[in-house]
């Protein structure tokens, strides 16, 4: 741990120039990928990033074969062209055959990569002296990043941000509802192609840093994490970009703190930790937030059910209501009923005196509300859906906990303030 802190200190003092360059470069690259990946994610095409990153290999190899030099510019042009070709093939085959997307994605990526390996081995066996290290280009060489790469990544990041800012509405619309976007007069095929181009360019450049397999993570993982924090696209873009940037830097710092530690995989691990954290702890959509919500709903339902039963027992003429009466009426075990009763007493809904249960005024109001909703719903179902009177109870049993005061008002108005429910029980107003 101390080692890592030392590295962070060195990092900020800009004493270690290489570390500074690599960390900054990775951060910017991951930012650029996170931003453009947000739309790949929203369009449910997360795995297309995997296809593109595998498919750039033949392009790079052909660029080398044609030019004979290891020039990043030619490599990137070749990579972009073969990446675009792979996307086009995926779309074409999907439109023209009965094959499902997952099959086409897997087939395209493996065949492109296979062709790439063939070309690469051809180059290697031809004994060209300049070829050495051509494949390390594809398995990531973040550690040997130079200031030139940082400039390139910065340009891509700026282009991505500007283009997304300009086309934010169009990109957002095609992510959610293409037909609606078409109706509004957006040029769908242009927007799709443009988004694909941005993605391919980002992937083609990023592959050099983290390698073919892990490039997909740079696109998807930040967006997935961001999705659990917000429902707004601009905020999601910011979170994804931030996750990417921080992971790029932290990943590099960690990998520099030990010997023989690879950079790309550490970036992916840090990214995944960010994403997992927000998937678990996201305020609204996170796993724990939803668990909590479900629990509080259960508490509400249990409280209301017991309250209702106390009221009904009293309505039926039971003078002294004890816990055993409730256990008999409810399907809950004794301990659970005891717990619910204690909670109700704490909320001043009931009083418990020597084992007997008495509704307070507040509790009576609460109980009448639940029963009213229940009986109103029964009338609604039998009147508007012509459901048999015997069949409306179970449905109302569930919905009585969900109906809001507004819906209740509407129901009362719609049903013209009814007096009794289908079972001829009085409705308590």
């Amino acid at each position, binding site marked *: 741990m101390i080692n890592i802190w030392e590295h962070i200190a060195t990092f900020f003092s800009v004493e270690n120039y290489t570390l500074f360059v690599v960390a900054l470069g990775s951060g910017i690259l991951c930012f650029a990928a996170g931003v453009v990946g947000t739309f790949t994610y929203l369009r449910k095409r997360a795995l297309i990033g995997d296809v593109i990153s595998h498919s750039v290999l033949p392009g790079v190899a052909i660029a080398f074969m044609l030019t004979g030099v290891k020039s990043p510019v030619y490599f990137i042009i070749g990579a972009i062209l073969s990446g675009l070709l792979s996307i086009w093939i995926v779309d074409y085959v999907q439109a023209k055959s*009965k094959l499902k997307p997952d099959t086409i994605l897997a087939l395209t990526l493996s065949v492109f990569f296979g062709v790439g390996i063939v070309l690469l081995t051809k180059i290697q066996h031809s004994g060209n002296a300049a070829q050495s290290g051509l494949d390390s280009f594809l398995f990531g060489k973040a550690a040997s990043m130079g200031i030139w790469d940082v400039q390139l990544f910065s340009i891509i990041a700026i282009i991505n941000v500007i283009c997304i800012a300009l086309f934010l509405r169009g990109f957002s619309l095609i992510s959610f509802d293409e037909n609606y976007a078409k109706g509004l007069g957006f040029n769908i095929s242009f927007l799709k192609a443009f988004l694909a181009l941005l993605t391919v360019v980002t992937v083609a450049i990023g592959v050099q840093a983290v390698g073919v397999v892990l490039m997909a993570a740079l696109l998807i993982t930040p967006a*997935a994490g961001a999705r659990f924090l917000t429902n707004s696209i601009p905020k999601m873009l910011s979170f994804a970009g931030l996750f990417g940037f921080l992971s790029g830097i932290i990943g590099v710092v960690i990998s520099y703190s030990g010997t023989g530690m690879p950079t790309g995989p550490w970036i992916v691990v840090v990214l995944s930790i960010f994403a997992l954290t927000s998937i678990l702890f996201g305020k609204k959509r996170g796993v724990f937030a939803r668990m909590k919500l479900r629990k509080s709903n259960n508490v509400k339902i249990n409280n209301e059910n017991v309250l209702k039963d106390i009221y009904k027992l009293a309505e039926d003429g039971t003078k002294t209501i004890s816990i055993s009466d409730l256990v008999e009426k409810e399907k809950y075990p004794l301990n659970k009923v005891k717990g619910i009763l204690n909670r109700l007493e704490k909320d001043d809904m009931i009083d418990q005196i020597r084992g007997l249960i008495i509704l307070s005024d507040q509790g009576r109001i609460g109980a009448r509300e639940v029963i009213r909703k229940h009986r109103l719903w029964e009338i609604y179902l039998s009147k508007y859906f012509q459901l048999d009177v015997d069949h409306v109870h179970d449905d109302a049993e569930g919905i009585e906990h969900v109906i809001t005061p507004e819906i209740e008002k509407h129901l009362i108005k719609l049903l013209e303030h009814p007096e009794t429910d289908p079972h001829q029980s009085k409705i308590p107003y």
Partner: protein
Amino acid sequence: MNDFYIIFTASLVAINCALMGSFLVMRKMVMIGDAISHAVLPGIFIAYYLSGSTASLPILIGAALSGILATLMIEWFTKKARLQSDAAIGISYTLLFAIGIILISKFGANADLDQQCVLYGEIEYVSLWLQPIIGSFSLPKQSITLLIVCIILIGAVVWGYKGLFITTFDPNFALSTGVAVTFWHYFLMSGVSLTTVVSFESVGAILVIAFLSGPPAIAYLLTEDFKKMLVVACAIGIFCSAAGYYIAKWLDVSVAGAISSVIGLVFIIVFVLTSVVKSKADVISA
């Protein structure tokens, strides 16, 4: 003899993958196969590290378990965290692959594993490890493992055909008639993991994916009958293995790469021919 060893080994991988891949293609789960083939890396590494060798049963089981772990992870992401399925797959396998690479770089000096080997495989060298069978007849060690797995898979598909078939083509009906859908899901995933793990060493992850997706997809274009599809997929896989090997030998290039390329080529030919036939049929019927 070297030619035979390599083609034999590749064909066994092709058959194993065709059997599993046909189900994956029909279940729209090929990318899960892709994910498993990358995600077994940490399991394989831990196995290497603990035992120092590759060819033992506990290691196969351990690695197959890490494949299952990947499917469980994907399932947790989609069901419990309600993440969309494509992202769930992408996050799970990249994380597991990254962990695998970190483990290998950190502790793997003796493990003889690297990223290239993971993706390309080393089928060219299978004849370096021969195991005598009867008299002077011997087979590469890897192909023996593959053969055993092949027999297990054929047995599993024959034994479990009804369950696999019904849960693949009509999962709702299966569920309503009380078929254990979850059991068959994990039954298939175990098979896929096993296939991936034993194939990966000889042919690499990429060719495993090509074999899982390609021959079944081509067979599906040719026939709607699932039993025929299984047989056709196996045959196409074997043909591509042989053709790919000879092309690789002729051009002096990677065998795994050449086989993937041939699979792509066969797919293109069948795709074009079937769409021509289909459009002709459309014209006639119109």
